[in-house]
């Protein structure tokens, strides 16, 4: 899931600026789960905007703000309501997809897009993957060194852990100790003996496009 966090209200209001009429687009998937872009958050933002003397002329929730076809259909009535700007309450991907379907109306994000994460319990999300493009989890006991190690080290730990905690944030456990423990538990410690080739960052060059159709 893409984890998002609300921007400060002042920042959103500064983007809206002098616009008198506003539309709001929420997202029914990740942002709803993160409580940053569901029906409840749309209602909250509507109240804030109206208190500031703005008129909210349309609201909608796309099932997935990151799916162009669905967004296209949802955006037709929004555009028809001719707001001076649209606030999109999704991740950065959703904001861009909504903007592509908003004609000449400016689209602003209400959220900061944080990371690909896991809901470890209600209201708590941990970062889990950094989209490196060459997954190493098969060698590392399904613990990601690219994400869970603050230095993204691929050959084992640095010398910086103290009592199993990371030098960068003592609240975090050392990823490589977790990897070692997991490989011990699964009887696969020998995987640490294999010298891996440097994965490099060639596959990380962005923006990337994947197409099952052989073209964009």
């Amino acid at each position: 899931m893409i984890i998002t966090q609300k921007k400060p209200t002042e920042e959103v209001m500064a983007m809206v600026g002098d616009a008198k009429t506003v539309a709001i687009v929420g997202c029914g998937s990740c942002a709803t789960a993160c409580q940053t872009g569901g029906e409840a958050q749309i209602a909250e933002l509507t109240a804030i905007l109206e208190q500031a003397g703005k008129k909210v002329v349309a609201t909608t929730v796309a099932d997935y703000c990151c799916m162009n076809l669905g967004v296209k259909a949802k955006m037709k009535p929004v555009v028809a309501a001719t707001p001076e700007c649209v606030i999109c309450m999704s991740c950065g991907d959703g904001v861009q997809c909504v903007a592509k379907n908003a004609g000449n109306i400016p689209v602003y994000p209400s959220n900061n897009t944080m990371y690909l994460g896991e809901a470890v319990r209600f209201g708590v999300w941990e970062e889990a993957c950094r989209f490196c493009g060459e997954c190493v989890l098969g060698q590392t006991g399904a613990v990601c060194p690219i994400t869970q190690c603050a230095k993204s080290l691929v050959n084992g730990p640095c010398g910086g852990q103290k009592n199993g905690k990371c030098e960068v944030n003592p609240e975090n456990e050392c990823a490589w100790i977790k990897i070692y423990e997991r490989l011990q538990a699964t009887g696969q410690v020998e995987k640490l003996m294999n010298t891996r080739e440097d994965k490099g960052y060639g596959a990380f060059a962005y923006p990337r496009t994947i197409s099952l159709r052989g073209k964009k």
Partner: protein
Amino acid sequence: MSILKDALESGKFGVTAEMAPPKGYDFAEQMEAAEVLSGKVHAVNVTDMQSASLKASGIGLCIKLKQAGVEPILQITGRDRNRMAIMGDILSAASFGIDTMLALTGDHPVVGDCKDSKPVYDLDSVGILKMLTKMEQTGCDCGGNEIAGGAPQFYKGAAVTPVYEPIFLQINKLRQKVEAGAMYVQTQGIFDLDQFKYFLDAVDKAGIKTHIMAGIIPLKSAGMANYMNQNVPGIDVPQHMIDRLSAAAAEGKEKGIKGLPTQLGIEMAAEMIAKIKDEKLCDGVHIMAIGAEKNVPTILDKAGITV
């Protein structure tokens, strides 16, 4: 040819001292220290913004040392440079006759004084060593371009932390560093020889063959020891040493003599070095005096070490 390589490969007891470039660009203090160290150590190991604390870059001090006739070791971390920048520095270093280096992963910027700096870590210590070994083997740089005149050859080193749990992970990474081309390793500061022997035994059992240089940090006070115990990973100063430093401070206060704890720190460091050499525990020592490089000759003298 690398003077350190010469010493270690010929079975001499290797001695290196660590030196940090200045904050700012006045190298006078470093050059004074270099003069004091000249002829007393095989090489001076120049740090690469250790503790992620901003300093003049190491390559500058290495060049100055080289020009002053003191053998430099260029430390390179993966924190601030990607592989291109590291390779570029290595080529520049080679052109100044620098032929000894030490690869480190590097402390993260958030523990230093330039916290907004982007951490790079394109390569870690193992990756840097592999890249340089490949350069030497193929004669090509990391872009695959043939290096005119052939690849420069470096005597390559790495670091290791003997006090580490689970020790398997340190030993395993050390093995990877040696396989990647590290011909010598310097350890984090050691204060307990039994602990050190336990580590050396683990290295032996893993079948790792490299030259090990024990890290020596001359203590200056009980406060310094306590601070390092709490804040520096891999440092474990035993309580009896801290007590001796406290007693020395109390004695100094009573008798009105300054610098007794520093004196004691020098004695303890010398004692440890002499023991390491006498018991043939490892191949040399790496002295990290942390700004007190002028004391290094005294320590070596008391330990009965000449190079």
